[in-house]
C-alpha cells in the first residue's frame, strides 16, 4: 500500500495536522499495523519536497511540531493518477502451505489433517474479522471484507487441494 498516496487522499477532504492524519489513517486503514509518527513525518516531508503538499500553517505551543498540511493541485493530480493506475495482480503461490502438504504426502503423513487444521485456523481469523465487521462502520466492513475474501480464497484453494489429495499423492509418489 502506498502510504504517501493514502495520506494525500486523506488531505483531499481538507487540511490536517500530522497527528490528525495518523489518527484518520489508523482508523480507516491501519487496524493491523498503526502508523508510527515518524513514518507520517518522513512521508510528509517527501511529499512537501515533491510539491504535492504545502504547509498550511503552524500551530504554536503544545506538541513538538504542529504543522498543518494542505494538498496542492499537483497532489490532487497525483492521487488521481494513482487511483486510475491498476495494481499489478499479486500471485501468492501458497508456497509454505504447498510445501507442507507435499512433505506430508512424501512422509506418508495425513495431509488432510494439515489442511483441516489450516482451515480451522483460517476460520478462526475469519470469525474475528466477521465479528469486527459486525460491530464496525461501513469502512470497517469494507476493510474486513477485503481480508475475508482473501482468506476465503485461501480456503477455497485448501478445499480444492483436499479434494485432489488422492491425485496429488500419486503424483508425488512418482
Amino acid at each position, binding site marked *: 500500500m502506498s502510504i504517501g498516496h493514502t495520506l494525500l487522499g486523506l488531505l483531499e477532504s481538507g487540511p490536517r495536522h500530522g497527528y490528525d492524519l495518523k489518527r484518520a489513517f489508523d482508523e480507516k486503514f491501519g487496524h493491523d499495523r498503526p502508523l508510527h509518527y515518524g513514518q507520517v513525518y518522513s512521508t510528509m516531508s517527501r511529499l512537501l519536497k515533491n510539491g504535492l503538499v504545502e504547509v498550511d500553517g503552524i500551530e504554536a505551543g503544545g506538541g513538538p511540531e504542529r504543522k498543518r498540511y494542505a494538498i496542492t493541485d499537483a497532489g490532487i493530480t497525483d492521487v488521481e493518477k494513482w487511483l486510475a493506475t491498476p495494481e499489478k495482480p499479486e500471485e501468492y503461490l501458497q508456497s509454505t502451505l504447498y510445501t507442507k502438504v507435499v512433505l506430508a504426502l512424501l512422509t506418508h503423513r495425513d495431509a*488432510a489433517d494439515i489442511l*483441516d*487444521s489450516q*482451515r*480451522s485456523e*483460517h*476460520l478462526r481469523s*475469519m*470469525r474475528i*474479522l*466477521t465479528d469486527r465487521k*459486525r460491530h464496525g462502520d461501513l469502512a470497517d466492513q469494507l476493510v474486513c471484507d477485503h481480508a*475475508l*475474501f482473501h*482468506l*476465503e480464497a485461501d*480456503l*477455497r484453494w485448501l*478445499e480444492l487441494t*483436499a*479434494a485432489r489429495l488422492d491425485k496429488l499423492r500419486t503424483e508425488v509418489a512418482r
Partner: protein
Amino acid sequence: MTAPAGSLLAAEGLRKTYGPTVALDGAEFSIHAGEVVALMGPSGSGKSTLLHCLAGIVTPDAGSIVYAGREMSGMTDAERSALRRSEFGFVFQFGQLVPELTCVENVALPLRLSGTPRKEAEKTGRDWMARLEVDELAKKRPGEVSGGQGQRVAVARALVTGPRVVFADEPTGALDSLNGERVMELLTDAARSTNAAVVLVTHEARVAAYSDREIVVRDGKSRDMERAV
C-alpha cells in the same frame, strides 16, 4: 465417547445408508444452547443427511441422538413431529415458503400448526418480520418478493416459535454475498438474542465464519475442529 456435558443436542455413532450410498458412517455432533455450529464439507459428504438426522426428519440406521436429555430414536414419528414444531426451526436453501400464503401467513404457519389462534400467530409473525426488517412484505406472496427478502421471511418463520435449535441448510446458497451476509447476521443475531442454537450447513467459509465453531464432514465421518486442536 459420551456427549459433552451441558450439550443441548448431541449425537454419536450415526450411520445412514441410502441404498448402496453410505451417507453417514459414524458421525458425531454436539451443540450447546446459544451456540452456532457450522457443518462444513464438500457436496455429497453427508452434511445435509447429518442435519436431517439431528432434526429428527430422517431416522439414522444406527447411533444415538440425544436432545435435551431425551434419546430421539425412542420417539414416535408424532413425537418427533411435535418436537420439530415446537422446539426446532428450519431454514432451507430455497426458502420453501408456501406460495399461496402471504408472507405473514407463512411466518405464522408454525405457530398455527401448534394451535395458536390466527390473529395471535400473525401478530407474533409480524413482530418477527419487523426484527428481520421485512415487515413491509407482510401482505405480499412469496412470488412477489426477492430471493433475499424471501429468505429473511423464511428465517422469521424458523424463529417465530422461539425454537431452541434452528437448522439452516445452505440458507444463503441461493443469495448474493450482500444478501447472504445480511441473512446470516440477522439469523445469528436473532438466535443469540433468544439463546437458540443454530446448526448451519454450508460450504462457504464466509458463511461459516458466522459460527462459533465448525464441524467438518467428510465421507460420512465428522471432525470437530475445536476439540481436535
